[in-house]
């Protein structure tokens, strides 16, 4: 059973890309931690001082594409 349902408006590529980005840079800290994809996007948006929507808007997508360091942004 999927714990993270893909928002209906997202393409499979969007979903996979966002999930890969969040898994790498905003990993779930404990095995028991369960956050929806929307909550995880909000966490990322808060870190980068973006408008917190929980949605993959243009601002968020642009931030995810920028060149960056490979170390996670939240301490695992």
């Amino acid at each position, binding site marked *: 059973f999927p714990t993270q349902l893909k928002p209906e408006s997202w393409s499979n590529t969007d979903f996979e890309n966002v999930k890969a980005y969040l898994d790498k*840079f905003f990993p779930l800290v404990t095995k028991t931690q369960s956050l929806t994809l929307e909550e995880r996007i909000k966490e990322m948006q808060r870190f980068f001082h973006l408008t917190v929507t929980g949605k993959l808007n243009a601002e968020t997508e642009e*931030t995810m594409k920028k*060149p*960056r*360091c490979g*170390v996670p942004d939240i*301490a*695992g």
Partner: protein
Amino acid sequence: YSTFPGNPRWGKTHLTYKIVNYTPDLPQKKVDDAIRRAFKVWSDVTPLHFHRVYNGHADIVIGFGRREHGDGNPFDGRGNTLAHAFAPGQGLGGDAHFDDDERWSEFSREVNLFLVAAHEFGHSLGLAHSNVRGALMYPIYSYVNPETFRLSEDDKRGIQKLYGKFMT
């Protein structure tokens, strides 16, 4: 600023580093100089000293690699991830790896090696990412003129929390 869980830091102020390979994008002398200047960013504001070694053990091992390069954290081709480094510790601890699929540069607006190295060495010394835009430890790369580069107050507070202030 933030530090890694458990605040890992080096328990000494004299640290060694070793460059194990080079990028073809820059002359070796330019790489050596960028690395030296990147360490100086941190030694200027703390009691830390960095000494280069050519053989044997070094606290901080520096290298360039592509895709999977031996640490289980593969690079991703040009763009996106530029480099990564490990928090202080034994083995891989402190080591800094640079993605050789990037185009490394000395002064131009391609990926500036000095700026990325200074950021990565912040990790090598125990700083995690800062959410302060403009701080060196902010995770997203942005170009500033290396000749006029200044460490932000946020970075300074972070590194001085771990190692104290520079003393004359």
